[in-house]
């Protein structure tokens, strides 16, 4: 309200001056500066990267590639991938699906939207899965569903905890009903791991929505979320169209979910290794292998 008033005054002042305020913001070179999508503040890219891609003003945790996430999470050289050569097919013959997958694969170096494997985190062994939103918004089709299910089955067999860094636009519609069934497949595998006594930690990252929220992402024994990230079931625009009202800014943020009771804690990325290894220690997992490589 007050801001509107200032704006009105400013506009009038500028009108009177005969010099209209320059509306065009200067173009931001992509590699030099980062503009926070949450608070709009601008920061030098090297500083942003030094902070592990978090906003110095509002602490929004920006999206990471799966590779970047692995680098700041796992002990150095400890990661052994599972099912790394699995690729999608085109079950409903969706036009140009293969082409799109190929293009994204070339761009990202990934085969699909999730990497899974085994690693140590400060010496604690765990099965990890990391979703990469650059790959078709990390939507869940057959490959994501199968890799997640196998990761849980591997963990069940080997009595290992599972840590998933989730990000997703939801089910991969290009795979039709098959993508919906991946929700049942993954949730079923989580349930079996859980019934066998396995520990599952979910780390919700930007953005976690749709069919992934409505399946394995919401089933962690412990659910952590990075600050200010988007988490929800339905898309913001869909809800806005349904209720015909503007939604509050904090709607579907990690903090909104914490207040609603659906997240155990907000976890800062810069101490994530410590947070995760501490939880593993408190579940009586023993330290093995390499430790304190970094972080």
């Amino acid at each position, binding site marked *: 309200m007050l801001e509107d008033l200032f704006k009105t005054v400013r506009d009038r002042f500028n009108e009177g001056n005969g010099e209209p305020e320059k509306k065009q913001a200067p173009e931001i070179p992509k590699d030099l500066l980062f503009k926070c999508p949450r608070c709009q503040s601008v920061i030098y890219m090297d500083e942003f990267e030094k902070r592990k891609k978090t906003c110095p003003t509002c602490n929004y945790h920006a999206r990471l590639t799966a590779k970047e996430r692995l680098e700041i999470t796992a002990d150095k050289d400890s990661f052994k991938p599972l099912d790394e050569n699995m690729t999608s*097919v085109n079950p409903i013959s969706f036009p140009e699906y293969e082409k799109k997958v190929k293009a994204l694969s070339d761009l990202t170096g990934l085969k699909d939207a999730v990497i899974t494997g085994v690693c140590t985190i400060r010496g604690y062994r765990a099965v990890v899965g990391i979703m990469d939103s650059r790959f078709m918004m990390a939507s869940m089709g057959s490959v994501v569903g199968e890799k997640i299910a196998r990761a849980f089955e591997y963990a069940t067999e080997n009595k290992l905890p599972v840590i998933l860094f989730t990000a997703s636009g939801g089910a991969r*519609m290009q*795979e*039709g009903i098959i993508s919906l069934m991946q929700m*049942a497949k993954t949730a079923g595998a989580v349930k*079996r791991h859980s019934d066998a006594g396995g520990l599952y930690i979910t780390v919700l990252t930007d953005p976690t929505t*749709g069919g992934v*929220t409505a399946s*394995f992402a919401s089933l962690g024994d412990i659910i952590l979320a990075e600050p200010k990230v988007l988490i929800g079931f339905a898309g913001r625009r869909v809800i806005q169209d349904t209720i015909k009202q503007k939604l509050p800014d904090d709607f579907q943020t990690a903090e909104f979910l914490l207040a609603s009771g659906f997240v155990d804690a907000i976890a800062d990325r810069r101490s994530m290794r410590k947070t995760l290894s501490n939880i593993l220690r408190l579940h009586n997992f023993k330290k093995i292998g390499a430790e304190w490589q970094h972080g």
Partner: protein
Amino acid sequence: MSKLSATQRLEIIRQKNRPTVNDYIPAIFNHFTEFHGDRHFGDDGAIMAGIATLNSTPVTVIAQVKGRNLDENKKSNFSMPHPEGYRKALRLAYQAEKFHRPVICFVDTPGAFCGVEAEKRGQGEAIAKNIAEFMTLKTPVISVVLGEGGSGGALALAVCDELAMLENALYSVISPRGFASILWKDPSREKEAAELMKITAEDLMQFGVCDKIIPEPVGGAHLDAAQTADNISEYLINAVERLSAVDIPTLLDNRYKKFRKIGMFNE
């Protein structure tokens, strides 16, 4: 059985007088006794649940409610459940497990409701929990898709030992309209989407998603609701008998495998 396109079937299931669970439940079951509420927040009119007998066997019935007119639709929110609806369903599923009653779910929804309150009360968590818990529910679960089964909102009542679909019913990852709107930014291409998506009962038999197609009278269920109810009833009596004869560990193993094997990929 008729060979109709997905679009033709879409038109049939959108007939205003297509029968709903309000027609089917009295025709199929005896002594239906409705139970309300999730014991946490409230009672959701989009999901009707209770106990009844099917051919004198006690069963638990959980059903998504399409309204037949505006008043009914106001009460049932056009069959779009809120989290408390899914939690009511799960409460009654646990009850069925405790008292060894088979569970019969009727799916008929465009999807879970999308709204501020639904998000606040954990729509995603409610659906996820149903999916995971139904997977290991120690009693037979049978789901029947009556009209449209849309997205996770349908799946939350469709993790089962057997999934049957009425002949003209459609079951999809998202409504054809939503599909067209998201992938092509053009909701008016709904019919094209319906054809492309492979969402008819026959398509879903091929994917291993649907196990049984229940015939409808020629032209659609609305032309003879009583006959359609008889067809559903005949299937359910048979399925309950068959599945009740399977020991629980085998039943659960088969249920897991039914979903576990769905997926197409190279490696």
